[in-house]
């Protein structure tokens, strides 16, 4: 079933999840600017259709590995938004009890294997999750989200070959936002990304990451292929990156015109809204209701995070091992 044939509930769920990500990120950006959040963070705003379009096909048993820009993947995979916000605030109620922060949000019980501070850290891990499914003869799949910059990390190439020869049920979702930090993709990535899969005989697809339905459909096929035991797929998903690389990045290597055009012309939420309202699958009131709900959800997450206690100092040295001495 292609995206445009989804049920009303499914469409609302997809929109809602994208909306949560957008509002979450915009809010984290604002809190960060006002100094209420420690450290810094990499925001996913603009890329929502990718995480949601892919994760739409996954159950809690399926696994994803993520990146430094992981909030969107976490939300799309079902991580608790309150716990995520508290984690980013460094609180004891955080999803990782404040020990991980933005770059290490994880919830294994939801199949979320962790954001990752190491570019290229995820691909081997996703292969491992897929290997578990294969060895235990389950039909779970694993998705490895990574950026266009990560395509040049050796681990990515190794993992793609491994997945292909072992026919692992893994999907390499390469989110191409045109940049690795402040460097344009064109400056550092030789050739076409899908060709790197083709060279291995791996299935691949190139999709517009602003279009939820395009991502949905391509991911559907990839996930089905993996579940059938037919091996990995690479999805090359082109998206905008709304903010700078990290929260404090002046982002002056893009012209203001380029940035405003991007936000104007490449907004997956706006595109979704116009597609579903034009096709009369949902109406504006439906979507506005979601927007309002989501706003509340994030407000309350921030409020709770702010009020939550810091982790106890005794936790500094716990959780290093299951059992040490």
């Amino acid at each position: 079933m292609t995206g445009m044939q989804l049920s009303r509930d499914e469409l609302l769920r997809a929109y809602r999840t994208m909306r949560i990500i957008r509002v979450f990120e915009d809010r984290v950006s604002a809190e960060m600017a006002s100094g209420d959040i420690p450290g810094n963070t990499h925001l996913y705003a603009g890329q929502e259709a990718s995480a949601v379009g892919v994760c739409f096909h996954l159950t809690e048993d399926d696994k994803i590995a993520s990146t430094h820009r992981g909030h969107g993947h976490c939300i799309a995979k079902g991580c608790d938004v309150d716990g995520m916000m508290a984690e980013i605030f460094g609180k004891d109620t955080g999803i990782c009890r404040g020990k991980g922060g933005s770059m290490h949000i994880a919830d294994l019980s939801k199949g979320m294997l962790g954001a990752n501070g190491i570019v290229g850290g995820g691909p081997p891990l996703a292969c491992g999750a897929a290997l578990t499914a294969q060895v235990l003869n389950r039909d779970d799949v694993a998705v490895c989200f990574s950026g266009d910059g990560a395509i040049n990390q050796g681990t990515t190439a190794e993992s793609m070959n491994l997945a292909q020869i072992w026919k692992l049920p893994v999907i390499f979702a390469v989110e191409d936002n045109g940049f690795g930090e402040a460097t344009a993709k064109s400056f550092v990535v030789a050739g076409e990304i899908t060709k790197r899969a083709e060279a291995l005989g791996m299935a691949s697809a190139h999709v517009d990451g602003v279009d939820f339905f395009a991502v949905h459909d391509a991911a559907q096929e990839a996930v089905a292929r993996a579940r059938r035991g037919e091996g990995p797929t690479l999805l090359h998903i082109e998206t905008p990156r709304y903010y700078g690389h990290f929260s404090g990045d002046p982002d002056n290597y893009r012209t203001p015109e380029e940035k405003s055009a991007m936000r104007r012309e490449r907004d997956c939420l706006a595109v979704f809204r116009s597609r579903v309202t034009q096709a009369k699958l949902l109406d504006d009131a439906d979507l506005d209701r979601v927007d309002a709900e989501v706003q509340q959800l994030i407000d309350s997450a921030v409020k709770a995070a702010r009020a939550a206690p810091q982790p106890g100092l005794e936790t500094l040295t716990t959780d290093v091992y299951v059992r040490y001495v």
Partner: protein
Amino acid sequence: MPTKSYRQALNEALHHEMGRDPRVIVLGEDIAGGAGASGQKDAWGGAFGVTKGLLGAFGPTRVRDTPISESAFVGAAAGAAATGLRPVAEIMFVDFLGVCFDQIFNQAAKFRYMFGGKAVTPFVLRATFGAGTRSASQHSQALYPIFTHIPGLKVVIPSTPYDAKGLLIQAIRDDDPVIFLENKLLYDTVGEVPDGAYVVPFGEANILREGDDVTIIAFGRMVHIAMEAAGQLAKEGISCTVIDPRTTSPLDEDTILEAAEETGRVVIVDEANPRCGMAADVSSIIAEKAFGALKAPIFKVTAPHTPVPYAPNLEAAYIPDAKRIADAARAAFTYRKS
């Protein structure tokens, strides 16, 4: 008790655990060997023969020859461990850690902490280490000080066939990431090894010999060289305690400190390079926690601060030997604070 080689002891441990738990898998380069080729299957059973027979017993789904992609397969082992398997990955020589270290120390080792205690990563990485095979600088290092430095890893260095089997079974049953290091020169050494499964717990040192004068602490193959030195010293009337910590992380501080306090004179023997090495580590623990009992400097007997040379005579000089250990013990024994 039956007598077996260190290699066979390890092989038995793998057979036991794979038989016992379907979640245990092994993966690495040529751990079977012969895949895709015209001749014999399971042709190698690992570069050192440790995994021989596993392919036949457990099949290719659980016994996986990998591409030469250490980051991918070691990382896959970490990812599989976090999602329900209990993988035992092999990197042939610990020297190859440089091509896959991130997956070990930033991923597997830190999952549990970063994720607030919610991850369990029963991951075992086996590797050979050590000089003495004329394999030169990139195939002879010890490197366990690097793993020992990293919080979240456990590090095991068995010195006997008995310990090899019991520690490997413990490693596989352990819920934390374990780096399991085998000295190549020990594979053909023999000793008593029960047929059944048993564990040697982590963090419990083995006291091989007790004496009154000098405490010698040694790791891996150095334990045997230390025993040789202790034998010589006994003839001179210097009686030594010899301790094999067996695991460097966790480290059995209590046993080490107690022995150091009893003799007040300590020699630490380690085949790794000296700077930030195991000997330095143990010495510093004693110098901090057993200082009051010390009667002499803490002597370290280690490899020099050089890569491992190829020429047999240089390599022999590189590795600590019984003479250097005995000299250090004598210096400790005769030292009088002026």
